[in-house]
């Protein structure tokens, strides 16, 4: 049976065009760019061409501003810890939001243990950062603001243009984690002045284990990985050339296809939202109806629990995700949903659907077709379902 994959936010397949570009660097052009021989020169060339392609992807004015890393988590570590340590003399206050990716949240806790002060900007009911609150949190010790381009969970787009203006006016560094949006919304760091940007290869259909940090000229960061001085001494370790070549190819493809692809995904996603909300009583869309990632749909179904929902979808060969605590390592529900003002039991009943390059219309049709029955089955099982709804479900049966 064909399976339906709707969890693109968690992982994406590598585009076959990327795979074919990479293979030659795995077993033929395998040399270390630091080596002085011809083979080494070849690797150096591949590295600089790739760096230029990543720079082009976000319209960075020069390719030197791209630092390759092992992925988004490392880029976030380098951005926050590196910039905080590198600018300690100027102050000790860092601002993030309540709905950042778990890596940023935990890095912020680490910074607090190192003596930094961290403020977390609250969000509104749609999961969008409150600019008025942000402005009020800034003080003369603030050195860094880190707010992602979009929530990786509920897909709400953050006002990064306004944030970059506030940061620039106050002479504060602004970092954004662009991973959640990089496959659907073009980013132009000359149009929106951002100091540090986290990018991930897999999130644009490149290989895992590669990422980058854009570092605007003049921004000071301390290295967090010490070694042979690669990447201008900012990130040591022999470069992952095949991975980087793949990442660059993925960026090149993404740059030309992003608009068309995002439009296609948006229309499929809109169909899914409309169909689901129409067919399932007491179902809601979490996050903002318009200001959201075009490939993200985040639902809430009252009276049922998310893990049960995911398990039931699994039985139908559909892969999706949930913000329920019962699937997390900590048994805590999604911090994003709680910060938006949802109750714990509401956060438990969430379903996260993310579409991607290979999503077909029949995948969406299948989900719309199956979901109402799964929700109904779990609601008939649940002691929380109110009697009128059970009655309504049973009437339809007769």
């Amino acid at each position: 049976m064909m399976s339906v994959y709707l969890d693109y936010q968690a992982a994406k397949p590598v585009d076959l065009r990327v795979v074919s570009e990479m293979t030659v660097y795995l077993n033929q052009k395998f040399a270390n760019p630091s080596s002085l021989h011809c083979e080494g020169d070849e690797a150096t060339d591949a590295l600089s061409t790739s760096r230029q392609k990543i720079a082009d992807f976000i319209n960075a004015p020069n390719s030197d501003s791209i630092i390759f890393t092992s992925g988004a988590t490392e880029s976030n570590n380098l951005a926050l810890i590196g910039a905080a340590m590198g600018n300690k003399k100027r102050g000790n206050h860092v601002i993030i939001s309540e709905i950042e990716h778990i890596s940023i949240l935990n890095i912020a806790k680490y910074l607090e243990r190192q003596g930094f002060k961290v403020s977390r900007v609250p969000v509104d009911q749609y999961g969008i950062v409150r600019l008025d609150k942000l402005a009020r949190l800034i003080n003369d010790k603030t050195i860094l603001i880190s707010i992602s381009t979009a929530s990786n969970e509920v897909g709400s787009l953050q006002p990064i243009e306004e944030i970059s203006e506030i940061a620039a006016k106050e002479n504060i560094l602004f970092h954004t984690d662009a991973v959640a949006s990089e496959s659907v919304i073009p980013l132009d760091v000359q149009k929106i002045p951002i100091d540090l940007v986290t990018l991930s290869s897999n999130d644009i259909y490149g290989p895992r284990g590669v990422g980058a940090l854009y570092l605007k000229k003049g921004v000071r960061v301390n290295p967090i990985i010490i070694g042979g001085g690669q990447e201008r001494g900012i990130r040591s370790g022999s470069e992952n050339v095949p991975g980087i070549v793949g990442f660059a190819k993925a960026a090149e493809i993404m740059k030309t296809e992003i608009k068309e692809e995002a439009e296609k995904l948006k229309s499929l996603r809109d169909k899914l939202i409309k169909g689901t909300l129409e067919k399932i009583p007491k179902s809601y869309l979490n996050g903002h109806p318009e200001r959201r990632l075009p490939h993200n749909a985040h639902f809430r179904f009252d009276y049922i629990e998310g893990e049960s929902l995911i398990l039931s979808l699994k039985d139908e060969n559909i892969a999706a995700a949930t913000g329920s605590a019962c699937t997390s390592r900590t048994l805590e529900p999604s911090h994003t949903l709680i910060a938006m003002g949802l109750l714990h039991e509401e956060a438990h009943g969430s379903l996260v659907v993310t579409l991607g390059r290979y999503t077909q219309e029949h995948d969406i049709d299948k989900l719309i077709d199956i979901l109402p029955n799964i929700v109904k089955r779990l609601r008939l099982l649940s002691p929380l379902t109110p009697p009128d709804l059970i009655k309504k479900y049973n009437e339809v049966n007769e």
Partner: protein
Amino acid sequence: MKSTQYTEKVLDHFRNPRNMGEIENADGFGRVGNPVCGDLMFMYIKVAKNDNEEEFIKDIKFKTFGCGSAVATSSMITEMAKGLTLEEAYKITRQDVADELEGLPPIKMHCSNLAADALKAAIDNYRTGAEPEVEVATSCQLEISVILGFDEFLGKGAYKEIPEDLEEFRDKRILIVDSGDNSLELSLKLTEYTGRVIVLTSSKEVPGREEIAKKLKKSDVKILHQSELLEIKGEIDEVEKVIIHDYDEDENYELFVDVVIYLDYRG
């Protein structure tokens, strides 16, 4: 083991739960868990006497809100307990249920393995002869004067009166304390301005006159039953969150909101 890596037997009970439902006029009723934590189980038993004049479980049914293992353990225990004497059934442990299911992921052994407790609660309920209903303490909402932070945030997100222009509530997260039909009518009206209206009530049922209760049920107003408002918190001069006491579960929790309305007619 991942939380969703279940044995085939767990999955079978999840997909085809046995003895799902309620028993009308049950002899014993047990309720364990808490929807806030993600699990809630109701267990119903019917008791009869066997040939040896021993009391045994003649029928047993359950309803469960929760993850895969919560559903499977409830279903499993109903199969294990049916036909057993009360004494035997009372001895079934969480471990017995997990063993019968050929194991549970370690992370689920405690949080989602409440079926044995639910059955014990049902038997206790039968033996003590109490009403086969959960005992619920009811009380009225606290008066405004004793809600911490209400006066501090008055006019800064906390309201005692209906403002003339409801437009200022557009897209806000609003919590309304149930203080009668006026407050409930206001909550319905506010759904035209925002998608997030929560009514806090001490009642177990949907509050209000029949006609209003009916409208509330149909609306997108979220009702928090058996709860009272303890405290309003915020940063600088704006309401940010509230502390709510759930006296059914006897615990306090935080909820992010922008506006708190408590219409006060006592002057």
